[in-house]
C-alpha cells in the first residue's frame, strides 16, 4: 500500500508540472526546455529555507513560489519579445545555468552531493489538494478571456495584437503563472522526497512534459491531466519492464502524433455540463424506442 501511495504522490506532483507547462506550451504555444529550472528553483528554495534557515514549511512554500516567479521575470522579460525558437533556446540555457549555479555554490546547496535532511512534510493529502486546486485554476483560466487570449496568441500573434491584445504583457503573465505553479510543485517535491540534487529535473524531463501535452491534445486540459497521470503512473508501475518501458511509450507517442495529430483528447473537456448532457440524452433515446 505504501508503494502505491508513493506512486500516487509522485504522479500527482508530476501532473502539476504537466499543467504548468500546459498553460505555456499547450495554450500559448511557447516551448520551454528549461521548465525544470523552475521546479529545481522551487525545490532548492524550499529545501534551503527549512534546512539552512529553519523557516516553517508554509513560509518556505510561499518563498519558493516568489523566488520562482522572480526567476521567471528575469528570464522572461528579455526573452518573451524574441521569436519562439529563440525563446526555446534561451530557456534551455537557463535550465543549464541553474544547474551549474547549484553545483558552483556547493557550500550552501551541497553541490553535486545534493541536499539531504529536508523535512518530510508533503504527504498525500497536501499534494492531492494542491493538484486539485491547480487543475481548477488552469481549467478556469482556459474558459475565460485569459485562455482565449492565450490561444489567439498561439494561433496568430500579429492578428491578436491588431485585435487589441498586449501580446508581450500577456506572455509575461502566462510565463509567471507557469513558473509559480512549477516552483510550488518543486517545493512540494522537495518536501516529499527529503533529498534533492541539481539533476532533479533536467531538460529531458522538461521535454517530456511538452510531449505529454501534445499526446493529450494541446486544446484539452483534461487530455494533459489524464495523459500525465497515465504516463507517470505507468512509469512507476511498469518498472519491471526495464528498457522496454521507454520503447513502448515512445512507440505510443509516435502512433498518436502520426494518426491523431490533434492529440488523443482533441479539444474535449471533462465538465459538469458534459456529464449532464450524458444523462439528458438517455430519456430521449427511450422515447424513440
Amino acid at each position, binding site marked *: 500500500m505504501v508503494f502505491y501511495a508513493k506512486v500516487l504522490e509522485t504522479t500527482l506532483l508530476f501532473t502539476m508540472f504537466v499543467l504548468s507547462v500546459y498553460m505555456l506550451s499547450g495554450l500559448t504555444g511557447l516551448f520551454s526546455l528549461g521548465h525544470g529550472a523552475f521546479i529545481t528553483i522551487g525545490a532548492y528554495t524550499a529545501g534551503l529555507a527549512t534546512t539552512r534557515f529553519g523557516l516553517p514549511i508554509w513560509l518556505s512554500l510561499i518563498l519558493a513560489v516568489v523566488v520562482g516567479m522572480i526567476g521567471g521575470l528575469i528570464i522572461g522579460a528579455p526573452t518573451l519579445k524574441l521569436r519562439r525558437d529563440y525563446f526555446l533556446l534561451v530557456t534551455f540555457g537557463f535550465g543549464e545555468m541553474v544547474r551549474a549555479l547549484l553545483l558552483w555554490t556547493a557550500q550552501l546547496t551541497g553541490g553535486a552531493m545534493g541536499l539531504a535532511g529536508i523535512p518530510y512534510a508533503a504527504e498525500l493529502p497536501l499534494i492531492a489538494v494542491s493538484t486539485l486546486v491547480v487543475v481548477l485554476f488552469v481549467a478556469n483560466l482556459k474558459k475565460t478571456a485569459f485562455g482565449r487570449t492565450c490561444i489567439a496568441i498561439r494561433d496568430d500573434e500579429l492578428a491578436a495584437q491588431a485585435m*487589441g491584445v498586449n501580446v508581450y504583457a500577456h506572455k509575461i503573465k502566462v510565463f509567471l503563472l507557469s513558473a509559480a505553479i512549477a516552483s510550488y510543485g518543486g517545493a512540494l517535491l522537495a518536501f516529499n522526497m527529503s533529498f534533492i540534487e541539481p539533476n532533479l529535473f533536467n531538460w529531458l524531463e522538461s521535454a517530456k512534459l511538452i510531449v505529454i501535452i501534445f499526446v493529450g491534445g494541446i486544446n484539452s486540459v483534461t487530455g494533459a491531466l489524464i495523459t500525465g497521470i497515465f504516463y507517470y503512473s505507468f512509469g512507476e508501475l511498469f518498472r519491471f519492464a526495464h528498457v522496454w518501458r521507454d520503447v513502448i511509450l515512445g512507440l505510443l507517442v509516435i502512433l498518436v502524433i502520426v494518426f491523431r495529430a490533434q492529440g488523443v483528447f482533441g479539444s474535449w473537456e471533462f465538465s459538469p455540463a458534459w456529464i449532464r448532457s450524458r444523462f439528458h440524452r438517455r430519456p430521449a433515446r427511450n422515447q424513440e424506442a
Partner: protein
Amino acid sequence: MELLRVDSISKNFGGVAAVADFSMSQGAAEISAIIGPNGAGKTTTFNLISGVQTVDKGSLRFGQSDITRLPSHRIQALGVSRTFQNIRLFDGLSVVDNVKISYTPQLGYSVLDELLSTPRVRRKERLIEERAMEQLAFLGLAEHAKKKPKSLSYGLRRRLELARALMPEPRLLLLDEPAAGLNAAEIRELMSTIEHIHREKNLSVIVVEHHMELVMNICTRIHVMDFGRKIAEGTPQEITRNEKVLQAYLGDMGDV
C-alpha cells in the same frame, strides 16, 4: 470633422520604398478607398495606420491622439479596427470566441479573478457572450457560433473577420480587400453590409480594394497609389476621368 490625419508617411523595406510620402485625411463618417495596382503599397499603408508596422518618416493622428509610434493594440484601443487581406482568424477558437478576442481589453478583470472564476468574471463572461452573439447575428453568422473557423466557407470566414473587427465598436474600420475571393452575389451582399454598418454604427471606413464596382458604388472619396506614392485623389467621377489613373491602373485593366 477629421478623424484620421496621415501626414507624408514613408516606409522602406531594404532598398524598396513600399510607401513614399503618402498623405490623406479621413472624415468621421466617410467611406473612402485606397486603390492601385498590385504592390502599390496599399496594404503597407494599412499596416502603418493600424500600427502593425511603424513608419520610417511622417506622422499619424487619430482623433486627438498622435498614434505614430503606438503599438497596434494601443491603436485598436483608441478605436481603429481592421480586417486582413489573407484572412487571419484564430483557428483554435470557436467562431464566437474569435469575436470575443477583440473586446477582451475592455473587460477589465484581473488574472486573480479568473483563477478563482469569481461571480464578477462569470457575469462579464455572460455579457461578452451576449454581445458577441449579437454581433454574429448582425452579420448572419449566429448559427455557426460554436463551429471552428476552418469549417466555414471562404465567404463566411470573411464575414467573421468583419464581425471580429466590429465587436469593439471602433470609430474607424480598415477593410483590406474585403471582396477578394468572393463571387458576384457575395460582393453585392458585402456592399450592402458595408453601407448598412456605415449607416447603423455611423463609423468611418477605409477600404483597400481591387474590385472597382464596389469602390465606385460605396466610396465617396478615392486615393490612388502607384509605386508607394499617391498619384490622385478625388470622387469616383473625378478618378475615372484622371489620365494618370487610367494609365497606371485602369489602363492595365483595359488590356485584360
